């Protein structure tokens, strides 16, 4: 490897470590409380700064080194009690650290081209002027270079013998206390090394030798790619284990081995998954600083309390979460927390409080962000939603206050009176929701006006190897992640007709007093209905916070599967979230509950459970009807839920058996009602005729008609007719036309005499 490559690699290694130090320093400095016990913290920061400085100069990142040195000087003085952290001092420290972070992130020059004079000047103003040996310019009394031609950056008193004893100048670890009065023996640290060789050693050594150094957990840096590889291999191991499970029971030895393999594989799996876990504190630690800055900027007093930051999440989830969480905090500070005066008026404490709490529960990770600010006004949201035409007015008025709050997640929504530079552009919350849902999670919001708001994020535990429900549909197998499955319902074929209904345009399933919207997986896959039309299994699925039912053919079991991504070209099909190789070597596709729901255009009515509560009432007011005419006679109406299908009728193909007429559709003989009309039918008239096939249990009947007038939802004003026993329910006014509403059951019972 050539020198240049070596140097570049070295800088990269150094930069990664320096970055960690700097970010930790930033966190510690933010929390620096002048009235608290900060000695240990200062020590810690000092050690890190020293390490950063040493490495910087050794890799010839002089700018960085100079700033680090400046910070170190301040810290030194704090350590020997010359200076104290204060409202004047802390910001300077922070600014310097921020600058260093910016520099280290600049992967082209690592800050060599960055202007540092401003920050250095600020550091100078903070330092007491009588002490000069801590500055970058040299020892007390001397400035610039000393007689040996080296720029002195650090002095420390050392006894003479060790210096004379050592053959070559070796870097000495800095003692906990640096004496400012310079005794005769001076040790200079050769920080301007041209050979990078000893550098890495430099940065490591001081930490090891320091007496008060806390022994942290021994860690090692590895590449994320390596972890991903291990994950993949663990996945292959799971595949082999699954194949072992299929062995016949008689082979005892093999089964025993398989069991042991099982135990070990599961452990390897979970260890690797754990390796990718990182604590939430990675994100949450940034919040106190953010809140402080915003508080100052907006002139509000805000404090933040965080708990549960040790909760761990998969690395990729964590990365995706950062922006949404920070956005929500910004929102909270900007719109949620009121200014001091307003708060005092309301009888609240002057300082607004944001509480963040993360915890495990029910197989998910929950992150709750609560504030005691002004809360959200359902009224204001309703107004805004109507004004921005996000929903129709009658829909909005039908919503409960709790449901209205969800409107904030619609793209283009914003109740901010003015778009501030902090937030309020109306592009935030919908992106937040989408990002969270893409991770398989959900967002929930609740609020009380004047009291406060709470937003909870629900996130699934680490991915890649997940337990699934395996189902069959149309001869193929599919996997549904268990995290999406609420419950399985076996539907008795005898009673299914009563429990499965049409409500408006949506098929729903009646379960424990509620109506659950359902999707037939066969229709999603564009397969014909099952031959006997029987519904046998229904899974109640959860997608985000919405629930729905999925009807499929049969359950094939549960299985822990390895998730493989769909082929790139197939990624656009939203109903699949991936694929997996099953124990028998065949591929099964993994269903995406949210994708299925969206694909089916599912109409859900309640954000909480997806159950419809208010629709029962709506049924009385509005009904879906098909209006039709038979010849020139009156207009008829039939409820949409009574209709199975409408097909075109070829009058010439109707055959008569006695007094009854029959027509064949798809090989099935349907009895045709509408005798009166058919008798009157004039073949010369060239209009089309239709057959409305009714859905009445086992019966195969249909009504012939000449003209389909309309289909839609109408408010029924029923005047019961005496002719109900002949199949007519009532005569009603539909759009001011007198219409006879057909009662399908009695029509069938009376063999269509009423028509």
């Amino acid at each position, binding site marked *: 490897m050539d020198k240049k490559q070596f140097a570049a690699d070295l800088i990269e290694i150094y930069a990664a470590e320096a970055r960690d130090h700097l970010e930790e320093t930033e966190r510690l400095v933010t929390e620096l409380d002048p009235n608290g016990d900060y000695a240990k913290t200062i020590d810690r920061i000092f050690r890190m700064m020293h390490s950063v400085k040493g490495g910087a100069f050794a890799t010839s990142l002089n700018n960085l080194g100079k700033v680090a040195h400046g910070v170190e000087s301040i810290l030194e003085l704090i350590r020997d009690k010359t200076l104290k952290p204060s409202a004047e001092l802390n910001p300077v420290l922070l600014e310097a650290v921020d600058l260093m972070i910016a520099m280290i992130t600049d992967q082209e020059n690592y800050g060599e081209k960055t202007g540092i004079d401003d920050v250095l000047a600020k550091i100078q103003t903070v330092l007491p002027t009588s002490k000069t040996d801590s500055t970058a310019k040299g020892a007390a009394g001397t400035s610039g270079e000393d007689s040996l031609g080296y720029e002195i950056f650090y002095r420390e008193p050392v006894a003479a013998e060790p210096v004379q004893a050592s053959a070559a100048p070796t870097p000495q670890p800095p003692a906990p206390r640096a004496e400012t009065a310079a005794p005769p023996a001076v040790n200079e640290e050769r920080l301007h090394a041209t050979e990078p060789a000893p550098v890495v050693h430099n940065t490591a050594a001081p930490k090891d030798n320091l007496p008060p150094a806390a022994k942290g957990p021994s860690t090692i840096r590895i590449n994320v790619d390596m972890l991903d590889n291990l994950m993949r291999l663990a996945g*292959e191991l799971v*595949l082999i284990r699954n194949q072992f499970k299929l062995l016949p029971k008689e082979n005892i030895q093999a089964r025993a081995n398989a069991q042991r393999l099982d135990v070990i594989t599961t452990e390897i799996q979970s260890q690797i998954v754990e390796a990718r876990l990182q604590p939430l504190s990675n994100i949450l630690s940034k919040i106190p600083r953010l809140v402080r800055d915003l508080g100052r900027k907006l002139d509000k007093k805000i404090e933040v309390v965080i708990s549960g930051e040790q909760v761990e999440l998969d690395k990729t989830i964590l990365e995706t979460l950062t922006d949404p969480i920070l956005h929500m905090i910004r929102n909270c500070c900007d719109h949620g927390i009121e200014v001091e005066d307003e708060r005092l008026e309301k009888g609240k404490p002057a300082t607004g409080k944001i509480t963040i709490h993360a915890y495990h529960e029910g197989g998910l990770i929950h992150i709750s962000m609560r504030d005691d600010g002004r809360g959200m006004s359902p009224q204001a949201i309703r107004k805004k939603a109507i004004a921005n035409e996000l929903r129709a007015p009658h829909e909005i008025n039908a919503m409960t206050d709790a449901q209205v709050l969800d409107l904030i997640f619609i793209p283009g929504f914003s109740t901010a009176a003015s778009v501030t530079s902090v937030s309020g552009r109306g592009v935030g919350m919908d992106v937040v929701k989408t990002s969270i849902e893409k991770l398989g999670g959900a967002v929930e919001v609740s609020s009380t006006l004047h009291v406060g708001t709470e937003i909870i994020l629900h996130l699934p535990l680490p991915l890649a190897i997940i337990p699934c429900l395996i189902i069959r549909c149309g001869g*193929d*197998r599919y996997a549904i992640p268990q995290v999406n499955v609420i419950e399985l319902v076996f539907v008795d074929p005898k009673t299914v007709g009563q429990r499965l209904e049409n409500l408006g345009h949506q098929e729903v399933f009646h379960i424990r007093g509620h109506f659950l919207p359902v999707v037939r997986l066969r229709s*999603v*896959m*564009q*397969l014909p209905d099952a031959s006997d039309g029987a519904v046998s299994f229904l899974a109640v699925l959860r997608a985000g916070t919405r629930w729905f039912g999925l009807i499929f053919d049969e359950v094939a079991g549960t299985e822990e599967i390895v998730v*493989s991504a769909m*082929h*790139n*070209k*197939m990624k656009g*099909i939203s*109903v*699949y979230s991936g*694929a997996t*190789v099953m124990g028998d*070597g*065949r*591929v*099964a*596709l993994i269903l995406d509950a949210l994708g299925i729901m969206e694909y089916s255009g599912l109409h859900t009515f309640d954000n909480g459970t997806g159950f419809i509560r208010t629709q029962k009432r709506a049924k009385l007011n509005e009904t879906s009807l098909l209006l039709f005419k038979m010849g020139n006679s009156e207009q008829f109406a039939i409820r949409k839920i009574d209709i199975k299908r409408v097909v075109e009728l070829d009058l010439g193909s109707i055959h008569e058996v006695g007094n009854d007429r029959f027509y064949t559709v798809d090989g099935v003989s349907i009895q045709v009602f509408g005798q009166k009309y058919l008798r009157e039918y004039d073949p010369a008239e060239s209009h089309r005729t239709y057959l409305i096939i009714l859905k009445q249990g086992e019966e195969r009947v249909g009504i012939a008609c000449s003209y389909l007038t309309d289909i839609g939802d109408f408010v029924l004003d029923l005047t019961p007719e005496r002719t109900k026993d002949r199949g007519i329910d009532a005569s009603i006014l539909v759009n001011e036309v007198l219409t006879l509403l057909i009662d399908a059951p009695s029509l069938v019972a009376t063999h269509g005499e009423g028509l």
Partner: protein
Amino acid sequence: MSAADIQAETSQYCTFKIGTQLYGIRLREIKEVCQNVHLTPIHLSSRFVTGCMNLRGKIHLILDLPVMLGRAKEPIQSENRVIILRDAIGEAFGIKVDEIIGVRDGADSSTQLINPQSGDEPLNEHIHKDLVYGVCKLQSEILLILNAHLFLDFI
């Protein structure tokens, strides 16, 4: 590639039948050939996709070459084969063909590049036109050479 280049090319072709017509793709574009595979259908995908299969733990997407060449979609049969193509052509994918005939050497026969724009193209299917980029006259039959690089563009 000019016609002259093709003639000078000594590449070998893996030939297979789709219906009664013989087609081929260059041998070096092929990774392997599988038989008796189980294909899992991907409903809602385009009609050019037969499904996906497991090959040593990795899931491959298999395209329906007969459909791409304008024929009707048919379920997989025992004499059908799946040709997996090299990563350079496309990642983790292959094609289903009716029957593999064998390897043919293109050097000892006359090969001609078809200009897709030419009006005297006997095959009408637009799709077909794009995929065939050469014609090779073998001793007893015509071999149509397909451009494997275009396969994935169909979906």
